């Protein structure tokens, strides 16, 4: 029996004390990720589930639902191990008062890392319930079978008892350890089968609550004064006219200036009436000059991987291919902007926030308000898209401070303009890549250095004898976030952080080398791939597409790209048209194959693949934040274009069976190949290679002119 861990556990026992089976988990979860394998995660004592008297099972998880579907797939995993119907499971997600501590929902970790812990909890609970049932039914535990939460004696179905009855008066505890025996694929009844989203109904009726939909008595809506650009300093402020407007409360505190009102539009009008003078910094870099800046100050380079003798290989090679790749800043642009509602009273704070990181947000709010973390509760309703962008949660701290000052609940809901201003953008990035093959077509030399993006996806999955991969150490977020940023405004993780840049650069270069050798790009990849799963995945994509080998440019507009991300192998093949007059790229068909190990919810996994590919068309074809120094020039969807219905080709997805492998990541892998697969298809169509993302019509025309 493990010891308690403060409020979370005490509260949990109170909840459970109403009657029910309690499962206490003290699980040494192998996170497999350096940063988030922190001591707090494996040594924390967490309660994961409760079985109510009515037979319904409540699962508690610090993960959140932002569209990726864990509300369904985590329920499936628990239902599988516990032996209940997925429809008898209720999910409590992202509530810091009742859920086990979690760093947040990112990195395709929910299924890979939280999943095993939850399954173990379910397995141990099932074992405990079977013990109880054995006593009650007077049968050996080994003779019992469980179907949909009902335990019966094998061969004597009349001798039965439900989990609800077993849980009714009992209060038992179990420590779940690594020995918890998980069910095998052949035993699966719930996992591995497509389950419709369990949140579908509330989302089509409007009942689903998002943070902005929560209403409290006497709540006020805030509008905040924002600087005209990043780096601007407030020189003079006159809130007199705004404060004189009926119903308006002006709050100035901790650098915040806000108008509060019972009507959100009235609060906005009041802020517009504030007279503010700003001192703005001199412009340093802009949308086009950022790349030279990054290469100059984005170092020092940190070695990520090294094999063989790169210097000698470079000296002895012929046919060196040298390229420089550039990609601009990209916005997260979830359709739901950041929102938080805060209530601060009696020394406690409660927040409803659109966040991917409820626990870190709780801690930040506690620090901002001078409260203990036990005095702050963050509740995460449905999140309207995150993609990495709802990790910093400035809006929660803003709402908490304003609510504390006002003595009434305050909602901070960023406008779209504030969303574009305060976003933690996907960083701009520049990479230099030199590579070479031998005469037989084997890649013998690879030297990659990337600034701005980080190293995810930077190490090729190919067997390359002499290889060096380096990445700029100063990313400006994550572990180095205390270092002075090389970026003119905040950057942060964006769906598969860095991989979209690195995979686009690498897979473009692979095709350039294949074309130079006159080799088919699929064949060339297979020649240089040893990874069995990756090879099989590529072959599956090629078969499904009906790939006909040819050296590029074949004028057909067919392209391919591969990657291994979050443990998942992904291979994507695209067919595009390029209009030589306008420069427009029109994707016609995309086929994507994934080996992601055991698939918990096949249809859910396919939705993530389709979603990733579709979202990826944005950074590939159009999305690039324009700016001049700290002045963000794109502030709404009028100029910043994200994928639309008319952009989306026919997308076909294939799941490669790999039941010997535990479930791998699903939310991010597919998006990492989108840029590369389109770039390679464009080269195949017109024989021109683009070295900058996004591949706008103007840049396509430029590349065509350069080639001619």
């Amino acid at each position, binding site marked *: 029996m493990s010891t308690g861990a403060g409020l979370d556990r005490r509260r949990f026992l109170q909840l459970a004390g109403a009657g029910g089976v309690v499962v206490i988990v003290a699980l040494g979860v192998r996170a497999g990720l350096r940063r988030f394998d922190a001591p707090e995660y494996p040594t924390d004592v967490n309660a994961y589930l409760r079985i109510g008297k009515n037979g319904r099972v409540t699962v508690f998880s610090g993960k959140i639902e*932002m*569209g*990726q*579907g864990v509300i369904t797939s985590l329920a499936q995993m628990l239902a599988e191990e516990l032996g209940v119907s997925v429809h008898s499971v209720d999910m409590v997600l992202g509530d810091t008062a009742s859920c086990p501590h979690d760093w947040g929902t990112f990195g395709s970790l929910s299924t890979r890392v939280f999943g095993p812990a939850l399954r173990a909890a379910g397995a141990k609970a099932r074992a405990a319930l079977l013990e109880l049932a054995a006593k009650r039914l007077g049968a050996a535990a080994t003779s019992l079978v469980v179907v949909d939460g009902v335990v019966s004696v094998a061969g004597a179905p009349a001798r039965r008892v439900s989990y609800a009855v077993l849980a009714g008066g009992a209060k038992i505890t179990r420590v779940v350890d690594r020995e918890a025996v998980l069910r095998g694929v052949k035993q699966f009844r719930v996992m591995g089968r497509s389950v*419709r*989203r369990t*949140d*579908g*109904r509330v*989302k*089509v*009726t*409007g009942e*689903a*609550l*998002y943070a*902005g*939909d929560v*209403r409290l008595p006497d709540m006020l*809506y805030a509008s905040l004064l924002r600087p005209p650009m990043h780096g601007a300093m407030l020189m003079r402020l006159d809130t007199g006219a705004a404060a004189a407007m009926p119903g308006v409360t002006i709050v100035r505190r901790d650098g915040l200036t806000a108008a509060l009102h*019972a*009507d*959100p*539009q009235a609060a906005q009008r009041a802020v517009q009436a504030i007279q503010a003078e700003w001192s703005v910094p001199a412009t340093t870099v802009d949308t086009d000059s950022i790349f030279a800046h990054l290469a100059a100050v984005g170092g020092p380079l940190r070695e990520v991987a090294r094999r063989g003798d790169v210097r000698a290989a470079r000296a002895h090679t012929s046919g060196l291919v040298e390229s420089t790749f550039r990609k601009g800043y990209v916005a997260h*642009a*979830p*359709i*739901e*902007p950041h929102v938080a509602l805060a209530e601060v009273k009696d020394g406690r704070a409660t927040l409803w926030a659109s966040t991917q990181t409820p626990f870190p947000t709780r801690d930040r709010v506690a620090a901002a308000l001078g409260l203990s973390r036990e005095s702050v509760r963050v509740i995460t309703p*449905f*999140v*309207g*898209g995150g*993609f990495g962008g709802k990790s910093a949660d400035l809006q929660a701290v803003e709402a908490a401070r304003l609510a504390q000052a006002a003595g009434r609940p305050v909602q901070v*809901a960023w*406008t*779209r*303009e504030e969303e574009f201003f305060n976003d933690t953008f996907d960083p701009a990035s520049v990479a230099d890549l030199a590579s070479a093959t031998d005469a037989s077509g084997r890649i013998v030399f690879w030297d990659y250095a990337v600034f701005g993006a980080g190293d995810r996806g930077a190490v090729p999955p190919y067997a390359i004898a002499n290889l060096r991969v380096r990445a700029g150490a100063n990313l400006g977020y994550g572990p180095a976030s205390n270092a002075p940023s090389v970026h003119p405004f905040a950057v942060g993780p964006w769906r598969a952080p860095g991989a979209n840049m690195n995979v686009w650069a690498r897979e473009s270069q692979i095709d350039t080398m294949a074309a130079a050798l006159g080799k088919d790009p699929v064949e060339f990849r297979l020649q240089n791939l040893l990874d069995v799963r990756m090879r099989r995945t590529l072959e599956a994509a090629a078969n499904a597409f009906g790939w006909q080998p040819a050296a590029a440019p074949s004028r057909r507009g067919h392209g391919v790209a591969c990657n291994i991300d979050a443990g998942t192998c992904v291979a994507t093949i695209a067919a595009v048209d390029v209009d030589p007059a306008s420069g427009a790229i029109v994707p016609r068909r995309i086929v994507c194959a994934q080996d992601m190990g055991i698939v918990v919810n096949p*249809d*859910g996994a396919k*939705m993530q693949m*389709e*979603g*990733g*590919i*579709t*979202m990826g068309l944005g950074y590939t074809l159009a999305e690039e934040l324009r700016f001049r120094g700290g002045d963000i020039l794109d502030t*709404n*969807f*009028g100029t910043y274009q*994200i*994928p*639309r*219905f*008319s952009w*989306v080709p*026919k*997308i076909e997805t294939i799941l490669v069976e790999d039941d010997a492998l535990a479930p791998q990541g699903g939310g991010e892998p597919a998006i990492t190949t989108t840029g590369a697969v389109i770039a390679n298809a464009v080269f195949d169509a017109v024989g021109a290679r683009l070295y900058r993302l996004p591949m706008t019509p103007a840049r396509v025309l430029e590349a065509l002119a350069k080639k001619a």
Partner: protein
Amino acid sequence: MQRVLTFRLNGVERSLDVDDARALLWVLRTDCAATGAKYGCGAGYCAACTVLIDDAPVRSCITPIGAADGKDVTTVEGLARDGVLHPLQQAFIDHGGLQCGYCTSGMLLGALALLRANPRPTRAAIVQALDHHLCRCGAHQRIVEAIESVAGGAPEAR
């Protein structure tokens, strides 16, 4: 101008004493407890706030409440009848035509307006009608399939 407005919200008559220049979206969300219509951009670009005035889809974030005076306003809350989902709602669930769900109410009302105007739209017509509805999760393909499955179906779908 402050005045008393009367409109039917999902078939229920409402009278409000309001400034008629206020955006329909915020009146629905703050005065009528109808939070199904969502704010996405405040400028009519994303269509997450789409509701119907009579049969016409409008961007409620840039439509003054005065425009609803004497009219029928339909929001996502008004699509299901007595707990029975509208065929479009059911189709969105069946085809997986949503992920985060934030753009869903606008999508449903945009689709409903399309089907009322054109009961048997082609795939191209569906794409054209919804092209200004933004979805960041990338559920587009399934949304089109969901609407296609309803188009030309039973009359109650319109």
